[in-house]
């Protein structure tokens, strides 16, 4: 259990980190400065003003991380932790009982529903948009605080990334860098399907987020979409397989990646939605008001005011989906067409064959290809 908690914490904290950091940067730098003129120390200003104002972002990140844990199968099955996900797999695969598996899945989703409901009602009465967008002046740290900050950040990076990456690199070089001839196929398949899904999901996320912004009674749609994220990939696959079976459309799976992309969208749309919603919540109604007073049409407001402000959230949204699709496994195994192995599938097959040295390259590739969008995002955040 300890091993699983350690793995999950280091693996999933970026969800909270990325969304919240964007919130901190965009939040008025004046919040801290004003609080200081009113007598608060920086820490008090942070705890009493900045942190509560970043609440939607923090909870959005936590909700994503929580749902990822609920949906995970690989880590918990390796560490032997009995969760809903492992139970669902057992019911479905060992007992061949699809119905029992679906019942367990519904239990899981009720729990997620409860969490959403609690979070939603706790912030229903609060408003989070603020008027100014200046960045806080960066203060250089000295002495003890500098050391502490460096150790904390460096230590997290070490445990969450450097050590595992180093272990994989070691495996890779031990086996002498023999690249499997199918490697380029795996790489192109993964990237193709990840980019496709990311683009479509950002478009859909914008659509849904705006719908709710215009008519808040539609917010239940977004909550509903959110369930996909907490759904273990295999459960989603059962659902899609059953659906296709009823309508005799299952041959679509072998004919194109359509079914696979659809499964990814159901599963991952929530993460892009959370990001776009968090970004939209920082755009005040008065901004819209000022813009239309200045003569901009609705479409122009979207183009010239909203999109520039949302740029970071949109890129974060696409990034989350891209990385998630790159590493998705169970639904891909079940729903993919012929000759369409992705890096994740290849890693899994090699692991099943207990060939640890050979799987180092595909798994490192998943990590590296995921790093590239992260660098992109950091530069976008830093530039503005």
């Amino acid at each position, binding site marked *: 259990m300890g091993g699983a908690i350690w793995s999950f914490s280091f693996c999933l904290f970026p969800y909270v980190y990325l969304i919240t950091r964007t919130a901190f940067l965009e939040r008025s730098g004046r919040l801290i400065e004003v609080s200081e003129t009113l007598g608060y120390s920086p820490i008090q200003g942070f705890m009493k003003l900045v942190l509560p104002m970043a609440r939607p972002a923090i909870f959005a990140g936590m909700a994503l991380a929580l749902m990822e844990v609920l949906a995970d199968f690989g880590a918990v099955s390796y560490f032997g932790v009995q969760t809903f996900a492992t139970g669902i797999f*057992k019911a479905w695969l060992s007992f061949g009982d699809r119905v029992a598996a679906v019942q367990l899945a519904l239990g899981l989703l009720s729990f997620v529903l409860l969490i959403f409901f609690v979070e939603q009602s706790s912030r229903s009465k609060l408003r989070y948009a603020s008027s100014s967008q200046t960045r806080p002046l960066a203060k250089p740290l000295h002495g003890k605080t500098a050391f502490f900050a460096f150790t904390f950040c460096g230590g997290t990076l070490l445990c969450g990334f450097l050590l595992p990456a180093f272990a994989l690199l070691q495996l890779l070089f031990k086996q002498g860098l023999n690249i499997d001839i199918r490697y380029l196929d795996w790489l192109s398949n993964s990237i193709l399907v990840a980019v496709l899904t990311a683009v479509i999901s950002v478009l859909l996320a914008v659509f849904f987020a705006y719908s709710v912004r215009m008519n808040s009674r539609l917010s239940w749609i977004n909550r509903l979409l959110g369930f996909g994220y907490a759904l273990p990939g295999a459960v989603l696959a059962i659902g899609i397989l059953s659906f296709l079976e009823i309508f005799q459309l299952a*041959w679509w799976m072998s004919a194109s990646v359509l079914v696979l992309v659809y499964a990814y969208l159901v599963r991952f749309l929530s993460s892009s939605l959370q990001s776009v919603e968090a970004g939209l919540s920082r755009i005040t109604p008065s901004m819209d008001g000022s813009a239309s007073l200045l003569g901009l049409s609705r479409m122009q407001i979207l183009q010239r005011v909203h999109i520039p402000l949302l740029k970071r959230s949109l890129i974060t949204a696409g990034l989350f989906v891209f990385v998630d699709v790159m590493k998705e496994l169970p639904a891909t195994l079940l729903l993919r067409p*012929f000759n369409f192995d992705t890096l994740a599938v290849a890693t899994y*097959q090699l692991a099943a064959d207990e060939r640890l040295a050979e799987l180092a390259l595909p798994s490192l590739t998943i990590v590296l290809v995921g790093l590239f969008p992260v660098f992109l995002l950091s530069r976008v955040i830093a530039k503005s």
Partner: protein
Amino acid sequence: MTTQQLQNILGLNTFILSVFLAAPLLAQEPSEAKGAKGAKELNLYSARHYQTDEALYSNFTKMTGIKINRIEADDNALAERLKSEGSNSPADVILMVDAARLWRAQIDGFFKPIHSQYLESRIPANMRSKPDPEGSTWFGFSTRARLMVYNKTKVSSQDVDTYEKLSETINKGQVCTRSGAHPYMLSLIGAMIERRGEATTEAWAKGVVANMARPPRGGDTDQIKAVASGECGVALTNSYYLVRLLRSTKPEDQEIISKIGFIWPNQKTTGTHINIAGGGVAKNAPHPQAAIQFLDYLASDSAQEYFANGNNEWPVVKSVKIENEGLKTLGSFKAENISIAAIGKNQIAAQRLLDRVGYK
């Protein structure tokens, strides 16, 4: 945003979605591909997860010119997909790596019974499904055994020469296995239930759990490594993982081998548990001729030798010469003689039993 703008965005999204909905209509329906004469393709659904099989498939394509389209996944995942695809399934050949799953696939009606003189003459009767007037549904092509490896300094070979001894107190804190939920373990337990009854097997499983050096985790190779490092005294493993290590030239693998011994369990009694990898023609295969050709190929000398030399399994065809030093080191052994149907039928009972005793 006005309704007009919302409609524009909606229209854009609908356009994108409709492009993707149209895509499968442009793809060929499998029934159309059926009619194409001389269509040199074979659609393979395989649960074989061995990297060394690439040569097996490319040799077939080289020999016959038939291109193999593959989907590889677990036995269970394949079964679910086949169930959903129903009569429109484009599968031609289905290969599985566990006897219980083969039996299950037969019961679920995924295979088409065929007559093949070649296959029936080459493959022994106990390695294929019982034929009825329409033919046999599945054929085994290779076997593997589940044997014990032990740490020579921690445990003596007389204490681990039967599966039953794993639950005795003499082996307390020594036993390691992979997760009981894995098909290889479930088949072993299923065979045990058939031989000794459910109550005795449950008591045995309880004893094994009490004797574990650590909770089950990792695969068979991880257990072998743990035995070599001394973390475990004895572990169960499939034969081909052991043979792979025996044949390896890497120094760390040779070090592992130097620290462990292996033993064939139950030689004086019921024999060592074996499992079969095999397959058959899919029920609604669009290319049935190519399918039978492929199965014949798998029973041919070259493919059978390949199972031995490539993936360290035993070929089912007796006349095939094996040149695998690792397999020769393991030597011959008395194999268990239990019907595949029995193992298949007991699989659910086996999983429930393991859940009751807390075998993770």
